[in-house]
């Protein structure tokens, strides 16, 4: 029982991180119908910026943890959004009018480029930071097993919930959200109505990159270790989460992330860590067999 609760906490934390990254995939897909395979690497860039800023802050002797976290979040979001914008401008916009496969390949190329760029400039070795938040709450003890909730896990879950709330508000209540939804439905009509479609798409990429940066900061604080390769596995898992939840749907991305996080945790705990990826992907296959649009996805209406 105690272990089950611990695994629930582990799974929720992991799921929140997957969900944050999955939103980036799903938003871009929603608007321009392409899979941004470089998104996992944008997250990796965000994590590197976080490590650099943490190190710089430590060098300047900043010791207040809340201030340091906030400063790093702001810096990471700012720089990573620039990356998101640049990736779209360089690799996707010139190809937007071509067939659907071209931007996909371009995205994979961008992913390889970002990975190698970070490897060359930052080195292949893993970059650790000193633990920032080390505390935790001992929830209860059963036998010899103490269920612990770390400060980092609280931070990740609270941040994710807050971001999701803010995001839902942005999409459903603001003028920019309306423009985004209009773009999703029909880019040509949006343009005719006098909106700058290029700008909307650019901002969407920047928001997606900003969320990936938040995930990058969280992961840096939680695991304390970053290397240039971290974007790959997490990127694939987050992409799976987005498809599972229904690609194009924001709550779907979050739900998909949580499901995958929880399945991985519980499968590894009670069955075998060896087959946990098999379990997540088996669920994906089952969902796609019976609901091809994912759990919360809307059926795609053929545009005439």
């Amino acid at each position, binding site marked *: 029982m*105690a*272990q089950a609760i*611990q*695994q629930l906490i*582990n*799974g929720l*934390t*992991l799921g929140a991180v997957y969900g944050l990254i999955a939103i980036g995939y799903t938003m871009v897909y929603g608007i321009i119908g392409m899979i941004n395979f470089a998104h996992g690497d944008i997250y990796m860039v965000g994590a590197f910026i976080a490590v650099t800023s943490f190190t710089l802050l430590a060098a300047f002797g900043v010791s207040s943890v809340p201030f340091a976290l906030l400063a790093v979040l702001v810096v990471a979001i700012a720089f990573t959004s620039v990356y998101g914008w640049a990736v779209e401008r360089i690799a996707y916009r010139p190809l937007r009018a071509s067939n659907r496969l071209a931007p996909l390949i371009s995205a994979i190329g961008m992913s390889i480029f970002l990975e*190698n760029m970070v*490897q060359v400039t930052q080195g*292949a*070795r*893993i970059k*650790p930071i*000193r*633990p920032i938040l*080390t505390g*935790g709450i001992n929830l209860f003890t059963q036998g*010899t*097993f*103490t269920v*612990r909730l*770390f400060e980092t896990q609280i931070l990740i879950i609270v941040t994710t919930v807050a971001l999701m709330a803010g995001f839902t508000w942005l999409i459903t209540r603001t003028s920019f959200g309306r423009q985004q939804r209009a773009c999703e439905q029909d880019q040509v009509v949006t343009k005719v109505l006098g909106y700058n479609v290029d700008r909307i798409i650019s901002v969407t990429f920047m928001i997606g990159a900003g969320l990936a940066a938040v995930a990058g900061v969280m*992961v840096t604080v939680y*695991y*304390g*270790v970053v*290397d240039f*390769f*971290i974007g*790959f*596995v*997490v990127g694939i898992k987050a992409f799976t989460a987005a498809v599972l939840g229904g690609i194009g749907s924001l709550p779907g991305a979050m739900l998909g992330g949580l499901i995958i996080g929880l399945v*991985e*945790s*519980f499968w*590894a*705990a009670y069955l*075998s*860590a*060896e087959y*946990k*990826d098999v379990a997540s992907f088996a669920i994906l296959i089952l969902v796609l067999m019976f609901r091809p649009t994912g759990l919360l996805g809307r059926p795609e209406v053929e545009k005439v």
Partner: protein
Amino acid sequence: MNRNVLLASCLSLMTMAGAAHAEYLVGIAGPMTGQYASAGDQIREGAQQAVADINAKGGVLGQKIKLVIGDDACDPKQAVSVANTMVDKGIVFMHGHWCSSSTIPASDVYNEAQIPMATVSTNPKVTSRGLKNIFRIMGSDDQQGTVGGTYLATHFKGKKIAVIDDKSAYGQGLADETAKALKAHGVTPALRDSITAGEKDYSSLISKLKADGISVMAYGGYHTEVALILRQAQQAGLKLTVMGGDTMTNSELVTAAGPASNNVLFTFAPDPRKNPEAAAVVKEFRDAKIEPEGYVMYAYAAMQLFAEAAKQAGSVKYAPLQHALATGDFNTVIGKLAFDAHGNDKSPGFVVYQWHNGKYDTVK
């Protein structure tokens, strides 16, 4: 038009091949990029220094040697294409690859092209397939698994022991051999499982270990995952002792895991840095701000092995060079090397080490 292009490319190929004979090309290959790129760095640094030293002393058989660097990223498919490129460039000797899963398919290519190779890959299959061109300058996983497993069985009596691997050819091989050694001493692993390398979150595995009261883990795999597991275990309040293999020599383990790295035991060949005959080379590396840890000295030794074998054979042609390697004795910075009929180092020897405050040393 097409014929001209063909002719031109033939000509350029010929001139390239011609140029190649002015110096001997020696290949090194390993994960220069990818998640294990730090091992690639070690191999490159070691080999470059060795080549510079050998050339400074007049080269091999009066010719300079030149390094060709291949990057397999520990991907078996890429390893084969690297091997093909190496053969194409006309290398006369190969040091590599690093991951057993890359070395095994690549060695078939070198064998067919008759290029002798020295490797540090430890999976038993590397040398057990009857290839005559492959020489292993390190022990194999059955040897190091036996040493590690025996150590755990005798020093951690009564403790529950988990055996975990990362599903790689190296990791799984090592973990299987460790489990076998444990069983031979009457210890049944409390858990036998695998993780996915490259992930960051191992909290579910750790909670499971904690719940089952397991405090000792024999691990087959690479140091990056061990660092994360230790860090997360410490956070979860689990004091975990890890027994790993030769890959744990990487000091990244310490930077990433912090003080928890003091709980890492591992098996490795006797430290080449302590070999008195290697003192000059060790100093040379340290002067160049390179710590000759892990595979640095092995890469250096592989180049020495080539130079000496070529000298003994009086040629870099396959038949005499292979014969010299198979029958000769060689003095290198990692000690005396001689190979048995399978191409295994005759006296590899594994010792158990432990990290202690950023340095590793042998334990009894």
